[in-house]
C-alpha cells in the first residue's frame, strides 16, 4: 500500500524558497506532530509502515526533500541543497502543519543528517520537541570526530578512521561529476531494488518508487553541497538544544558505531538505542522503530508538560539501549536462572512475559520485574510440556502483548540415576519438559517471529551436560544435548530471517533444580537425602544465577551460538573439543553423593 492510499492521508504542497514540497499528513491533526524525514536515495515512501503505525496515536507528517519524489528541484541544482536551505524547508513544513506547537523530528540517513542541523541551529529553538536520529550523523560532529583522530592518532583512532573511511566509499563516488547521475539514470537505477533486496534484505513493496533515478541523481548534490565544506570547517557550536534519541543499527555497512562515541558532549539529553539490523531500518524494522519513536515522543510530551528531564526516567540496566521496550518471554521464570533472566531484562527496560507452572512464583517475578524497571510484566501459568497450553499461550501473547522479540526457553527439570534404573515414565517426563518444552517454544514463538520478518532472538538453556557425558545423568544429558543440537540447527535455518539462536550451557549453578531433581531407582527417603546433599554441594559451589542471566543478555547482544557460563562448563567444552577421551574417562567416575 502506498502512502497516499493510507486511510486519512491528506496531501498538500508547501512553497518555500522558490520550490514546492509535497507533504503528506496522517492521523488526527489535533494531536502532537511527528515529522519524518527520509534519506538518500529515498523518498518519503521509505516511511510507509512506520508512519502507518505512528498515525494511530500521532499526527504524522512526511515530506519529500527538495529534488526528491514529488517535490520540485531547485534551479540550478548546485548550491540548492545546502543545510541552510534544507532547514528553511523544514521550518516551512513545520509552520504549515503545526504552527503553534513544536514537532518531534525523526530522520533516517540524510534525513537524520539534516535533522541534526535542525536540532543544533538556534533559529529552530522552540520549534522542535525531540529528535530521533538513525544512521545519519551530524556533519559537524563527524568533522570534529575526524579532526580529533587526525590530531592525536593512537592506533585505535587510526583504525577507526580507516574503518569509517572505507565505509564511506560511496561518498567519494558521489563527488565525481556526472558519473553518479549516469549510473543512477542507467543500470544502477534499474538494479537498485534488487540490490536492496539481496544485500540489505529490504522486503519488496511500494518502495523504491519509480522516481528513484531522479531522486538519486538530484540527491548527489546533498553530498556535493555540504560534505566537503562541513567536514573541513565543522561548526564549533553544534550542541543539540533538544532531547535526542539515537538509534544505531549495529549491522550498518555505511556507518560505524564508533562515530557516536563522543556524542554525549554535544547532546545534553541523549538516549541511546541499538538495533541488530542493516542500514534501511525503516523498511526492515518498522515495528521496533515505531514503538521507540512513539515512546520517546510520548516521554518528551510529558516532560514538556511537567518539566521533568527525560534522562532521569530511562532504565539504567546493562544493555538498556538494546532491550528497552522490547517484549521478552522467559519460561521457567518462577525461580533460579529464569527468574534472574527476567529481572535482568526488566532492568534493561524490556517488557517481560513470565511463564511457569508455579503461578505464585511467576506472579512474584512479574511483580518484582515491574518494580525494577520493566514498563510491563505479566505472569502466565503454563506447563511448557503441554502442547495445547503452549499454543494457547502463543495466541494470547501475540494478541495481547505483541510479537516476542526475545524468547528464552529456560524451563527444565533435573533427573539423575543410572540408565538401567530410569523408567520409561521418567524418560518421558524429562524429555517432555526439557526437550519438548523447547520445541514448543521455538515452534510457536519462532514462527511468529519469522512471520513478522523483523528479526528476533531465541535463547535455549542447554547445559554443560550437553557435551559432558556422565554415568549419573544419562536422561538429563540426553535431553540437553538434544536442545544444544536443536539450537544449532535452528540457528542455521533462521539466520536468513535475522533471527539469532543461542544455546546457554550454565554448568553448576546454585538454583532450586537440585531440590526437585528426580533420582531414578531410589525410594522417597533416599531421594530426599540425595536432594539435600546435592543442594548442599551446589550451595557450596555457589555460582549465582544472576551471572547466567548476564551471560544470556550478552549472548543475545552478541548473537553467540553456544555459551558456556561457569568455568567448569568452559573447561568441559574445551576438553570436549581438545581431548574427548578425558571427558569419557571422567564420565565413568561415580559422583560422591
Amino acid at each position: 500500500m502506498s502512502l497516499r492510499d493510507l486511510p486519512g492521508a491528506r496531501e498538500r504542497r508547501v512553497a518555500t524558497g522558490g520550490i514546492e514540497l509535497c507533504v503528506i499528513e496522517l492521523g488526527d491533526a489535533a494531536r502532537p506532530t511527528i515529522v519524518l524525514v527520509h534519506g538518500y536515495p529515498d523518498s518519503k515512501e521509505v516511511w510507509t509502515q512506520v508512519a502507518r503505525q505512528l498515525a494511530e496515536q500521532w499526527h504524522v507528517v512526511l515530506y519529500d526533500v527538495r529534488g526528491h519524489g514529488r517535490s520540485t528541484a531547485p534551479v540550478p541544482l548546485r548550491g540548492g541543497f545546502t543545510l541552510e536551505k534544507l532547514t528553511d524547508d523544514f521550518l516551512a513544513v513545520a509552520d504549515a502543519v503545526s504552527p503553534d506547537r513544536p514537532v518531534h523530528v525523526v530522520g533516517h540517513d540524510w534525513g537524520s543528517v539534516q535533522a541534526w542541523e535542525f536540532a543544533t541551529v538556534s533559529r529552530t529553538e522552540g520549534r522542535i520537541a525531540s529528535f530521533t536520529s538513525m544512521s545519519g550523523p551530524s556533519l559537524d560532529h563527524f568533522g570534529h570526530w575526524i579532526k580529533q583522530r587526525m590530531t592525536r592518532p593512537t592506533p585505535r583512532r587510526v583504525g577507526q578512521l580507516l574503518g569509517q573511511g572505507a565505509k564511506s566509499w560511496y561518498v567519494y563516488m558521489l563527488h565525481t561529476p556526472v558519473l553518479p547521475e549516469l549510473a543512477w539514470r542507467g543500470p544502477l537505477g534499474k538494479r537498485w531494488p534488487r540490490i536492496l533486496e539481496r544485500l540489505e534484505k529490504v522486503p519488496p513493496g511500494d518502495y523504491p518508487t519509480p522516481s528513484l533515478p531522479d531522486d538519486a541523481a538530484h540527491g548527489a548534490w546533498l553530498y556535493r553541497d555540504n560534505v566537503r565544506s562541513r567536514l573541513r570547517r565543522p561548526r564549533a557550536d553544534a550542541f543539540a538544544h533538544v532531547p535526542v534519541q539515537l538509534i544505531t543499527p549495529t549491522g550498518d555497512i555505511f556507518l560505524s558505531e564508533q562515530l557516536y562515541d563522543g556524542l554525549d558532549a554535544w547532546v545534553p539529553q541523549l538516549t541511546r538505542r541499538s538495533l541488530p539490523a542493516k542500514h534501511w531500518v525503516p523498511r526492515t524494522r518498522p515495528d521496533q522503530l515505531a514503538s521507540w519513536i512513539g515512546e520517546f515522543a510520548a516521554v518528551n510530551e510529558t516532560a514538556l508538560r511537567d518539566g521533568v528531564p527525560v534522562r532521569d526516567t530511562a532504565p539504567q540496566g546493562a544493555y538498556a539501549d538494546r532491550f528497552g521496550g522490547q517484549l521478552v518471554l522467559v519460561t521457567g521464570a518462577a525461580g533460579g536462572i529464569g527468574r534472574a533472566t527476567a529481572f535482568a531484562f526488566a532492568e534493561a527496560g524490556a517488557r517481560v512475559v513470565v511463564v511457569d507452572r508455579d503461578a505464585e512464583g511467576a506472579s512474584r517475578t512479574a511483580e518484582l520485574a515491574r518494580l525494577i524497571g520493566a514498563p510491563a510484566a505479566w505472569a502466565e501459568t503454563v506447563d511448557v510440556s503441554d502442547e495445547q497450553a503452549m499454543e494457547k499461550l502463543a495466541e494470547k501473547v501475540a494478541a495481547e502483548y505483541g510479537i516476542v522479540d526475545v524468547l528464552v526457553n529456560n524451563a527444565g527439570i533435573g533427573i539423575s540415576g543410572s540408565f538401567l534404573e530410569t523408567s520409561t515414565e521418567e524418560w518421558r517426563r524429562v524429555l517432555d519438559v526439557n526437550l519438548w518444552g523447547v520445541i514448543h517454544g521455538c515452534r510457536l514463538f519462532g514462527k511468529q517471529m519469522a512471520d513478522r520478518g523483523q528479526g528476533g532472538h531465541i535463547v535455549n538453556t542447554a547445559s554443560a551436560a550437553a557435551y559432558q557425558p556422565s554415568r549419573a545423568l544419562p536422561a538429563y544429558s540426553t535431553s540437553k544435548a538434544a536442545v544444544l543440537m536443536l539450537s544449532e540447527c535452528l540457528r542455521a535455518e533462521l539466520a536468513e530471517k535475522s533471527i539469532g539462536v543461542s544455546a546457554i550451557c550454565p554448568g553448576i549453578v546454585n538454583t532450586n533444580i537440585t531440590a526437585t531433581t528426580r533420582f531414578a531407582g531410589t525410594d522417597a527417603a533416599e531421594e530426599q537425602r540425595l536432594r539435600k546433599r546435592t543442594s548442599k554441594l551446589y550451595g557450596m559451589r555457589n555460582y549465582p544465577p544472576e551471572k547466567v542471566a548476564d551471560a544470556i543478555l550478552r549472548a543475545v547482544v552478541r548473537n553467540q551460538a553456544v555459551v558456556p557460563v561457569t568455568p567448569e562448563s568452559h573447561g568441559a567444552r574445551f576438553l570436549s573439543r581438545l581431548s574427548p577421551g578425558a571427558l569419557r574417562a571422567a564420565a565413568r567416575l561415580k559422583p560422591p553423593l
Partner: protein
Amino acid sequence: MVSRVKDERAPELQGFREVQRLAYACAEAVAARLKPGVTEREAARMQREWLRERGVRDWFHLPFAWFGDRTAFAGFKVPLQFFPTDRRLEPGMPFILDMAPVYKGFTADIGYSGCLGLHPLHDRLLADLEAHRALILSEVRERRPLREIYEDVERLMIRQGYANRHRAYPFGVIAHKVDRVAERRWSPHVFGFGTQSLKGLLSDAVHGHRDGWSPLWSPYRFSDHPPQPGLWAVEPHLGFRGTGAKFEEILVVTDSRDPEQSAFWLDDDLPHVRRWAEERVAA
C-alpha cells in the same frame, strides 16, 4: 540471669525494652536528619552523639550506616567493608542504620531501614520482612533447631525472589545473643565492638561449646541445636539487586512450657511493626 526469664512481665526485660526503644528513637531521629550529601561516616557519628547525649557510655558495637547498594552489601568481601565510608546519600537512595548501645548495663542491637524519597522496591522489601518476623517466632516456639530455622528463612527469601544478605555478616549469622553488661568506667572497643560485650559473647561461646550450643545463630553445624533461652538480637537482611532492607530486634527465648511464653518479641511497638500495621489498615 536473663535466661531465667519466665514471661514477658519479668522486671529484667524492662531495662532491655528501654534501651531498645531508645535506640529506635535514635534511628528515627537520625533518619529524619538525613539529607542528600550526608556521608555514612556522618550518619554514624550522628547516631553516636545522639545516644551519648542520652547517657549511653558503652556499646555492643558502634553505630553503622550503609547507603545505596551498600545496603545490600554489594561486593562485600572483607568485614572491614561494613564500616561507614564517605559515600554520600542521594535522593531515592535506601539506607540502613544499625546500632547496639549499652544503657544502664542493658544491651540492644537494632537495625533501621529507610529511604530518602520514594522507592517502591524498597517499600516492597520492607513489607516482605513481615513474613520473616512471623516465621522466626513460630519456628522458635516449635523449638526447631536454629540451623533449620535459618534454612527456612533463607528458603522464604529465595521464594520471595531475594538474596539472603545476612550471610555476609561475620559467621553468616542471622542472630546473636545479647545480655547484660557490667558497667565499667573504661570500656574500649576493638574493631567497633565493645570489649565488655565481646567478653560476654566469648564466655557464652565457651559455656555453650561445653553444652552443645552457640551464642551465634548461623547456618553451620554449631547452630544445630534448639533455641537457647536468653535474648537474641535477630536480624534477617534481604537484598535485591543493589537494594537491601533489614530489621533487627530482640527476641526473648525462655524455658517456659507455655508456647506463647516460650518465645516472644521483646517489644511490638517498633517502627517497622507499626508500619506493617498501618499498611494493613490502609489496605
